[in-house]
């Protein structure tokens, strides 16, 4: 679906009725070019530093492998729970593919709508605090003035040992 778009872009620029010979030739050449691009799975934009994956740009769904899903679960520390969760991610990626249609040549990314204003910075003085008791009220595990955490520096177990839906997707 995503790969079919380049063809549409090309044909948009073409005359509706191709009468004379030169135009017909040009039209056939463009179709051939478009067809080649489509076969290679190419997209309209030039391959830049972002396309780190394969030399022939892959289908976006190739990016959603079990390794990537496992990596995401570790990064986010939330789990996919079931197949629906994975499907939701695939849908999201499919939806985001539409961004490729837009030509953003020479456009700077925008972080904030207030980018042309100076950020307000106040003096580095302590103006409030001493509310330890209040803040500790909401913590479940605490000892004196400390939040208590379980032992750290223990990485999350590997996929095989974790209790997660993705285990079923591992190749056996």
């Amino acid at each position, binding site marked *: 679906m995503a790969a079919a778009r380049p063809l549409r872009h090309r044909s948009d620029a073409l005359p509706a009725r191709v009468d004379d010979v030169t135009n017909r030739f040009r039209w056939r050449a463009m179709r051939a070019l478009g067809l080649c691009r489509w076969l290679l799975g190419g997209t309209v934009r030039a391959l*830049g530093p*972002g*396309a*780190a*994956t394969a030399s022939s740009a892959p289908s976006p769904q190739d*990016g959603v492998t079990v390794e*990537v899903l496992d*990596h*995401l*679960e570790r*990064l*986010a*520390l*939330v*789990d*996919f*729970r079931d197949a*629906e*969760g994975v499907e*939701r*991610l695939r*849908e*999201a*990626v499919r*939806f*985001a593919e*539409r*961004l*490729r*249609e*837009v030509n*953003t040549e020479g*456009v*700077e*990314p*925008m*972080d904030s*709508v*207030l980018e042309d*204003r100076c*950020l*307000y*910075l*106040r003096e580095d003085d302590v103006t409030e605090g001493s*509310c330890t008791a*209040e*803040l500790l*009220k*909401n*913590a*479940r*595990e605490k000892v004196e003035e400390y*939040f208590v*955490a*379980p*032992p750290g520096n*223990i*990485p*999350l*177990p590997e996929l095989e040992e974790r209790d997660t839906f993705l285990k079923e997707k591992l190749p056996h």
Partner: protein
Amino acid sequence: YRRGQPLGELDGIPIAVKDNFNTAGIETTCASNMLKGYISPYNATVVQKLLDGGAVLLGKTNLDEFAMGSGSTDGVFGPVRNPWSYSRQYKEKIVPRSDSEPENSNWVITGGSSGGSAAAVSAFTCFAALGSDTGGSTRNPAAHCGVVGLKPTYGLISRHGLIPLVNSMDVPGILTRCVDDAAVVLGSLAGHDPKDSTTVQDIFQPFALPSLTDVSKLSIGIPKEYHAPGLSSEILAVWSKAADLFKNAGAKVVEVSLPHTHYSIVCYHVLCTAEVASNMARFDGLEYGHRSDMNKSTESMYAATRREGFSDVVRGRILSGNYFLLKQNYEDYFVKAQKVRRLIANDFVKVFGSGVDILLTPTTLSDAVPYVEFIKEDNRTRSTQDDILTQAANMAGLPAVNVPTALSGRGLPIGLQFIGRSFQEKQLLTVAKWFEKQVQFPMIHYLSYICEAAFFHPQRACKVSGSLKN
């Protein structure tokens, strides 16, 4: 009280606040298991300003979990019912589907995610309510509940204390029954806050809205891309009628083009999930909120806490956001979305630069749908469908207001949206007030057994500033 002087214009006025604003000593849950039982230690700046002005906090209103959604159906406290579902106007028009169907099953949603706030204002339980607006979350329920929903310019009102969803697009929203009230509430909330560095330092002067009589100097833009696929014919008709209303009154009505409107929802989808992935990282159970009993290691405790605390919707967005932020995807998705955002913002700059003062667009694609219909599609699909008309104003940080305009064939409210220039809320609300006066949106009529109390009297239902003088 003792001195016999009101604290401000809002002294004694009941106000409701959406449950993602921190309120000291009061449970703030964001309709999520993650924050159930969390008693906030401080007041959000906007809440503090309201309380300082003497407003009476009536309660915290229901929402979609963490303000993610467009129906107010996905919070842990359950869906919000639109008060108009119980109105005479709606009940008279319902065609019962079958005899075996229980009487209460065709109630409609409020829209989201500030559905609770909109319902509270619409049902006459309070004079004004605070919502939050990230992709239309104030204007969408305002349209479905027949109330005025104002989204101020980004940077005008402080976000300190508003549990963030998307830091670069969130704003506190104001829901009231008439435009004058919205201006009054805006007057007490707007202004620089040292605790929120994204508020602008310009001095804000609260204003009273002039009553516009002459619109001939006004230029109204009608963006053609807002005639989105799926727009109901009723809303299209109302939109056209509104444009004619302005034309007949002497204003200049022009068709304009915002070519990147179609991409705003995709752009929002990427930026929102990316920022959500970052903002939700603070919920680990250690300092506040739900904490799992898993104690093997910090990481596994975090993972278990987040698994138990977040719903499917929130988890889905976090995971999508993390995907778009992966090193191999960063340029393709996140940076690309930021570039598209600039294109969208530039579209608006161009249009406003060409002499258009206000844009007039529909707010929603249709009137409120019944709950049983709404839940047939999942949250993400619904959000992409429903936010399509409101989203672009958040991208560009522009002020926008929904004004209830007419009732649909099913007896439910339809609203129209006005989008104005940055920080020009006075102009925006002045035009909105003129329009509100022209359309004379009908009041909700409950069936007689519910209530015939005096406070349904139309003159007292509105004009906060007027009632103080009585």
